[in-house]
Structure formats: structure tokens, C-alpha cells
């Protein structure tokens, strides 16, 4: 299977946790980071995730490709925020300390502080998701969805999607090559509308054959009595160990702290300007 989700199999304490634990932890962690803009809290989270990366034995070069994407994305997002609302920080913190410049695009310390918060927020969420992707076996992922209460029919849809992505990718590639052999131009040499048209020449056979595939798979599943019982077991499902429970408690605490800080600050923002 082509490794699109970048799962890296290495013996480490994080790999040994069950998929369900890691999923719950990532969700709790992201909620904790999402809900608050408290700078002190957001500054601790990236440090914690770097520590976790150390424990998981995932190296920087393993994720450098994905990090590149995300870094570019973070920079663009920050630039966009500044271009569209250079005074957002002032609206949030209520004061204005101009560093230099004047008018709408004057650089204020409030705006800079807001950007710092935004950056910290990305940094507290993105590494942990990367860690989750690198340490969770995709097959176990579907089983863990069912474990946290998602209906097994839906968990099975996710499992099917993960199973058939490589197949469909290969089929897309095959059809694309066949159509190119028949003279379809897909490269940058063609105009955009021409390329869209050629894309549909690939898309239509792909979709129609996928419809047949749906028919075949659902017949096979029906023959085996899928969906007859209320529950099912999973080949990749595992029981929780003590480490699993500890991790979940820890992440629940993080969420608790985040909520508590919001309550203590009286809003989602920590304001050093008053």
C-alpha cells in the first residue's frame, strides 16, 4: 500500500497505546487548544508536543514533508489576517500601542501579540495531529472510531475508504495514462479550461467503474451477512491498558485547565495590556 498517511511503525510507548486512546487524546488536546487564547497555556502546549515527539521516536526528517506544507500554510494565514484586518488585535485587547507607521496598517503591539497567539495556537494543534498520523495504524483507526461510540456501519465506511484509496489512486493513474496515450493533454501547456475538460475524460470512466465497484462490494458484504447484528468485533481492536487511561486523564486535565483559564480570564483572551 502506498503510504499516504505516513504511518511509521516503530516500537515506542506512543505506538503501544491503542488507536482509540490516541484518537480521544488528540480530540481532547485539540479542543483544549482551540477553546482558549491564553498565551501562557498556548506556550506550554508546543513544548509538550515536542517532548511527545521525542518519546515517540518520530524524527524530524520523517515529517519534514508535511511540516513544509503546514509552515507555508501558517505563514499565508497570518499574512491574510494582517492584510484583511490589521486592527484585529486592537478590537480584542481594547488598547492601542503603535510601534511604527500610521493609518490603517500601523503596526501595533496588540496586533503583533494577536499574531503570536495565532502562531502558538497552530503550533499547539498541528504537531499533535502529525504525531497521531505517524503513530496510528490506519486499520486500527476504524476500530477505534467504533470504540469511541461511532456506529459500526459508519466506522466501516471509514475503513472501506482507507482500504480503497490506494486502489482508486492506481485506477486514476491507469485511466489517466490510457487517455494520455490517446492524445489528451494534461500538462501546463494547455489552457485551464482545456485541462478541466481533459480531467473529465478521466473522471467519467473512473466514477462509472467505481459505481460498479460499489455494487460488487456491497453484494459481497451482503452475502456475508454484514449489518445483521447490532455489534461487531474488530481484528485490530485492543483493550485499554493502564498507560491508555493515564493518557486520557492527562488530556482531559488539559481541557479542564483550558476551560478554567477562560473562566478566570473572563474571556478567551489573556490580556497583558491592562
Amino acid at each position, binding site marked *: 500500500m502506498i503510504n499516504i498517511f505516513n504511518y511509521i511503525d516503530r516500537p515506542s510507548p506512543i505506538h503501544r497505546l491503542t488507536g482509540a486512546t490516541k484518537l480521544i487524546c488528540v480530540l481532547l488536546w485539540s479542543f483544549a487548544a482551540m477553546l482558549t487564547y491564553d498565551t501562557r497555556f498556548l506556550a506550554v502546549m508546543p513544548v509538550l508536543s515536542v517532548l511527545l515527539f521525542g518519546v515517540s521516536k518520530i524524527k524530524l526528517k520523517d515529517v519534514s514533508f508535511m511540516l513544509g506544507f*503546514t509552515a507555508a500554510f501558517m505563514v499565508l494565514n497570518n499574512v491574510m489576517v494582517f492584510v484583511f*484586518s490589521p486592527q484585529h488585535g486592537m478590537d480584542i485587547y481594547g488598547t492601542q500601542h503603535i510601534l511604527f507607521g500610521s493609518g490603517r496598517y500601523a503596526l501595533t503591539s496588540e496586533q503583533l501579540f494577536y499574531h503570536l497567539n495565532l502562531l502558538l495556537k497552530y503550533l499547539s494543534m498541528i504537531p499533535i*495531529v502529525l504525531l497521531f498520523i505517524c503513530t496510528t495504524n490506519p486499520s486500527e483507526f476504524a476500530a477505534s472510531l467504533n470504540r469511541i461510540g461511532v456506529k459500526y456501519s459508519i466506522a*466501516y465506511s471509514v475503513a472501506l*475508504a482507507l482500504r480503497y484509496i490506494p486502489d482508486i489512486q492506481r485506477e486514476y493513474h491507469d485511466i489517466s495514462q490510457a487517455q494520455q496515450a490517446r492524445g489528451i493533454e494534461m500538462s501546463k501547456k494547455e489552457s485551464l479550461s482545456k485541462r478541466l475538460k481533459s480531467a473529465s475524460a478521466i*473522471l467519467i470512466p473512473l466514477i462509472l467503474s467505481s459505481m460498479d465497484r460499489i455494487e460488487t462490494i456491497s453484494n459481497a458484504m451482503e452475502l456475508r451477512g454484514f449489518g445483521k447484528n447490532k455489534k461487531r468485533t474488530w481484528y485490530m481492536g485492543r483493550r485499554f491498558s493502564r498507560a491508555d487511561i493515564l493518557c486520557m486523564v492527562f488530556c482531559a486535565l488539559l481541557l479542564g485547565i483550558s476551560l478554567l483559564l477562560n473562566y478566570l480570564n473572563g474571556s478567551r483572551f489573556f490580556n497583558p495590556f491592562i
Partner: protein
Amino acid sequence: MKKFSVKTIVAIGIGAALFFVLGRFVAIPSPVPNTNISIQYGLLAFMTVLFGPIAGMLIGFIGHALIDFSFGWGVWWSWVITSGVFGILFGIATKKLRLADGSFGKKDILTFIIAGVICHVICWGAVAPVLDIVIYAEPIEKLFAQGLVSAIANSVTTAIVGTLLCVAYAAAKPKAGSLKEEE
């Protein structure tokens, strides 16, 4: 909730896989971040018409979540949820279409395109920015600029790619009642 048929479950899985492959490998980036000219919404619209709003919601949600995970950011839940919302809305708006029986005439094309535009404008112009404000407290102006660009891009791709797919599917499918008993 109504129990899914096995076929719907499989359609959700394969639909999400298709959504993923199209979104991940056939994307043309636009100048605004988090915003691709994405032909997968044409596919989503087509699958929604065939399999109904709930299937559409799950295909959008699962497919979009997988795309985000594979890029490694995996945190823009507001946009992932919006893809799901589009599935529901579009499914309800196009409930009357009978594509599964192989009928997709001029009037149906019109319904399909108009429903697509309306649903995309609601989703990316209102649902996604509002969720972004609630979750991330980002400035409104930027979010609406992003939303507007995606609404336009997605409406166009839905109208072109989605319609092409529906027409091709209807042509490949024998019409309901096309067989006649011989006298």
C-alpha cells in the same frame, strides 16, 4: 436514525475514497490559503444526488477529514464540518431528482446547478466563517474573503464536473420503463 443499507455504507466508503483522491492529487491551488479549486465537490454533488443527504454528509465529512489528515494539518474542523453540511443541504435540495433511475433532463440540470450554487454560498459564505469565528476567533473580513472565493470556485466546479458526471451516468443507465412488453 434509519438503518443504512449495505449499499449506502459502501457508497459512503468509496465516495469518501474518491473525494480524497480527487481532492488530494488533482487539486489546483488558488491564491487564498486553505482554498483549492477542488473538483471533488462535483463528485460530492453527484454522489449526494444518487445516495441521499446522509450519505452526502458522511462522504463530505470523511473525505475532507482524510484530506486534511494526509496534508498533516488536520485541524480545520470548521471546514470539514462545512463539507458535511453541504452534503445534507444539497441532498435535501435535490431530493426530487431521479438520477438513480437514469433520468436527468434539461430541467434536472438546471435544478442541479442552481441548488449547487445556493448550497455552496450558504456553506462557504455563512456556515464556514461562522464556525471559524466560534472556534478560532479569527477576523471576520479574512474569513468572508476565503469563504467567497471557495463558494465561487466550488459552485463552478460543481456545476461543470457534477453535471458532466450526472449526464454520463444517466446515459450509461437504462431508463426506468424503457422496456416494453411486446404485443
